[in-house]
């Protein structure tokens, strides 16, 4: 989260009240990321019951999922409604390899990366040439295909799934810190990718695909790159998920999960790394707080999604572009 030295760029338009300026300075600050990390590191010192640790670990994994989807939806503007498919591919690949071949979980990571890249290409290559809304529904179908396939095949254990997946570490606390480290690297990596040359191309494609094409951006390749990056992030989050639960089943990878990740990205602010992290934490911790309202929770999420789009499409913590004039 280090910001490059501010070049003497044209002054960014500042609007709003003094309070608004103060909060926007706070949002822009490079310390926000470090503060978030500090909170994540210190949290187990405040509360370290097994339940709290498991909730926090899940939240961290969810942050990783959201930052992966943010590459696809936030940076590149491609709506992926089956993102959980990559999560499932990652979890199942590592689960199958570790239980059938007896490999330690870490050793499955290269295979997971390879398989998710292939999955990203298989689903992205035919659809990324088309209008973006086709992509949305094809990914939705793809999410279902993966879940149904996992449900039907023998090698994935059918409806009961895979159990007895070896963990990464013995103690839940150590595992929590390991997850925090991995997730931080993933979040920072996604953010750096977003600021790279490729990231600028992604944002160009998001804002105006035809103009990007005319300026010499190979839009198809750039979109495919975003899609593959998102797939790898999702797959690696899947490995963490498998390690945490030690058992996976098709029931964990429904459309509901995809929609929740999307909700986190949209709520936090598409394209904004801190926003997406906050959004993911809110979405994953909210059910713990609102346990009594379980029946209305998803209904409220749906309404919230519409409201955010109507009232504050930029999300809670919007992305501030470093380019002038936006």
């Amino acid at each position: 989260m280090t910001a490059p030295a501010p070049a003497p760029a044209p002054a960014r338009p500042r609007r709003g009240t003094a309070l608004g300026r103060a909060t926007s300075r706070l949002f822009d600050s490079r310390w926000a990321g470090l503060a978030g990390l500090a909170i994540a590191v210190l949290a187990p010192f405040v509360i370290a019951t097994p339940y709290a640790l498991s909730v926090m670990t899940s939240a961290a994994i969810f942050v990783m999922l959201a930052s992966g989807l943010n590459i696809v939806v936030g940076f590149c503007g491609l709506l992926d409604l089956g993102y959980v498919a990559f999560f499932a591919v990652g979890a199942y690949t590592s689960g199958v390899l570790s239980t059938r071949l007896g490999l330690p979980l870490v050793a499955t990571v290269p295979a997971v990366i390879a398989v998710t890249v292939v999955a990203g290409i298989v689903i992205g290559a035919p659809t990324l040439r088309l209008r973006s809304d086709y992509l949305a529904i094809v990914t939705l179908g793809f999410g279902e295909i993966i879940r149904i396939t996992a449900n039907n095949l023998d090698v994935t254990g059918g409806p009961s799934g895979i159990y007895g997946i070896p963990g990464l570490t013995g103690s839940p606390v150590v595992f929590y810190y390991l997850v925090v480290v991995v997730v931080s690297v993933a979040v920072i990596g996604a953010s750096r990718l977003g600021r790279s040359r490729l990231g600028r191309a992604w944002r160009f494609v998001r804002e105006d695909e035809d103009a990007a094409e005319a300026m010499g951006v190979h839009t198809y390749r750039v979109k495919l790159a975003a899609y593959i990056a998102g797939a790898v992030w999702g797959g690696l989050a899947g490995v963490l998920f498998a390690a945490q639960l030690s058992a996976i089943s098709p029931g964990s990878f429904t459309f509901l999960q995809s929609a929740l990740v999307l909700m986190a990205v949209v709520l936090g602010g598409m394209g904004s790394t801190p926003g997406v992290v906050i959004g993911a934490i809110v979405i994953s911790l909210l059910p713990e707080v609102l346990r009594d309202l379980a029946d209305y929770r998803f209904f409220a999420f749906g309404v919230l999604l519409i409201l955010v789009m109507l009232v504050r499409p930029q999300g809670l913590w919007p992305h501030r572009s470093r380019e002038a004039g936006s």
Partner: protein
Amino acid sequence: MAQLIWNGLFVGSFYALVALGYSMVYGIMKLLNFAHGDIYMLGAFTGFAILGAVGGVSPGMALPVLLGVLVVTMGVTGLSGVVLERVAYRPLRSAPRLSLLITAVGASFALEYGMRAAAGADPRVYPLRLGGTTVELLGARITLQQVALIIVAIALMAGLNVLVTRTREGRAMRAIALDPRTAALMGINVNAVISRTFFLGSALAGAAGVMAGAYYGKVDFLMGFLIGLKAFTSAVIGGIGNITGTMLGGLLLGLLESFGTYWLGGEWRDVFAFGVLILFLTVRPTGLLGERVTERV
């Protein structure tokens, strides 16, 4: 063989009815209405509620009662489609496409889980069940009720086709599909026509919902999710935005699924359908009748 074809055509006519709403809305405002499948679910539950309020129906009266319920339900789902457009889509018409898609997902979510909160998570048994006498025709077992449902579906589709191709209203729809701004300059009330398009599409989906409820005998809050996907697949196969193509696409998908199930087994049916979708998008993304379209609604 004949049985497979008949089953395919029967299921396909449901797909076609739902797909038409998708296709019309897409044709006119280039919006994928994700909540469309949930309007179908809403229709099934509306029919369920009305039948529950009416009370017991003697088997002989089942079909006339069902037709009455169908009409009322079409009105209800049509209006809810209008409300949906008004609340979730109209304010965003000039916003980026991504926002519209996201509100559509939100609307779908809200409808599904709103219904879950209202009616419970367990499947409900439809109070009226069309079972009945079977007739042998060319080696296929056909029930008269299936024939009746198909006739209703065909009548609705034919009516829609006449409306779109022969009436002033249909001309207005096609004009908006071509160019909304010019259509507005020519004195067409664009918002009103879009509202009516949503009404029509949602009414057809509601009709399909009631028919599916009465035929399969069970309704649940997620029933619209899968059929929404299948309907989209049908629309893409036929050429989205093209009404004839969409109907053909629905029937074709029904047939493909019927044969796919026979060859691969029932548990692969949905995978097969989406495989077809991805294949079509790769090979011929405009669909079967996509290129002939000059009139898109």
